């Protein structure tokens, strides 16, 4: 069963992106942003319907995050100002712990997606980001909106919004609270996350 319906438009869009890529390697385009999310969504759809164990699915989710999302900068952003005084090694180990935490936390949510699918609808450019709008169609649920926020600079996504709820903002708040609990110590926070 194919759970991700490639529409003719998205296939053509992806094809178009591949054709113009050599000429415009610097500027990212709407078509590229959309084809990136097309691929990410196809990978996610494949994972949630793979029938693998949950632990194996989390490992696969983490790979998707690393491939399609700018995890080092998302990790830096959720840490906020304390990231500036952290060493490169500290940031690296925090990023590693953070991405495993995200894969686990949201991967367990994706269980509800089994048998469902995510469709990519449209892409809109707003200043330096692309808002790639999708619809999640789950069994026995009214469809709901998901937006991937792709940044021009990295060519990867930096946030995911579900019905207006930003996971970046949500994790900024959550990691901020955890950092407080760890007495502002990033190493302790990283240890608590893993």
């Amino acid at each position, binding site marked *: 069963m194919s759970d991700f319906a490639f529409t003719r438009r998205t296939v053509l869009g992806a094809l178009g992106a591949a054709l113009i890529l050599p000429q415009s390697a610097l500027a990212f385009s709407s078509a590229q942003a959309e084809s990136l999310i097309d691929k990410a969504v196809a990978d996610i759809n494949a994972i949630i319907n793979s029938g693998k164990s949950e632990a194996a699915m989390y490992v696969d989710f983490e790979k998707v995050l690393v491939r399609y999302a700018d995890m080092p*900068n998302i990790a830096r*952003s959720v840490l906020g100002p304390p990231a500036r005084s952290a060493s490169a090694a500290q940031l690296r180990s925090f990023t590693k712990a953070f991405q495993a935490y995200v894969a686990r*936390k949201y991967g*367990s*949510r994706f269980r*509800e997606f089994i048998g469902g699918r995510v469709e990519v609808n449209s892409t809109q450019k*707003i*200043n*330096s*980001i692309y*808002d790639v709008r999708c619809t999640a169609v789950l069994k026995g649920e*009214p469809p709901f909106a998901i937006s991937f*926020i792709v*940044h021009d*600079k*990295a060519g990867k996504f*930096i*946030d995911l*919004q579900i*019905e*207006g*709820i*930003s996971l*970046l*903002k*949500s994790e900024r*708040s*959550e990691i901020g*609270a*955890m950092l407080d*609990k760890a007495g502002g110590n990033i190493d302790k926070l990283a240890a608590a996350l893993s």
Partner: protein
Amino acid sequence: MTLSPLRPLLAKTSLFAGVIVLAGCATPGPDGIADPYEEVNRGWHDTNVALDKAVIKPVSTAYGTVVPDPLRKGLSNVSDTLGIPGSVVNDVLQLRFGDALHNTARFAVNATIGIGGLFDPATGMGLEERDADFGETLYTWGMGEGAYVVLPLYGPSTERDSLGLLVDIALDPVGNLLGNPEKGYKTGLKVADLADTRYRYSDLYESVIYDSADSYAQMRLTYLDNRRYELGTPIVAGAGAADQEAAAFDIYEDFYE
């Protein structure tokens, strides 16, 4: 039509006219959240979580375990259907006549073919759920969101949405037509609907309430982000549609600085 169902409503609205004035004044912080009552709110949040643990969770788990899924779904459908006339009133107050017609047709279909609302054939006919509430009506009329508040039992809200909730309770077109004890049955259905929702989404709900480092902050952010998205709240007062859109994405502008 007599004015009698409106009288308690008018009494209640004038009582809360003071709240309207207050709601315009709350200034949001740099994170876009106005929470001057944080201390009181956190108190109610803790009470609500304790109440969930002691009563709501066990009751909804029992309800979800004992009553089979199709029956729970059916009862929730009836409760939703009884709420549609309230949405129609709000659609009209917001001058959204297309939605008023949509919801009227939805009500007519589900109340008849849907056997008093037990089933929801309307959604399959393109008459999907389109809720409207008085908080939204107040937004449409230009009232500010006001401060964030946590209501006892009910949970996250804003000053505007709390006022809207009170008006919706007073307005309740179906409830006001029903006498006793039918009005009580309607309330019972609403409680059953809430218990069903609590049971159906227990994993999601509990991951926020019980597994967060700061569940208060998570609830506040989730409620406000989602509610503003639902309403399409302008972020910059008086700016055009394009600026509004850009402002919603401002949080990403300094991402790489």
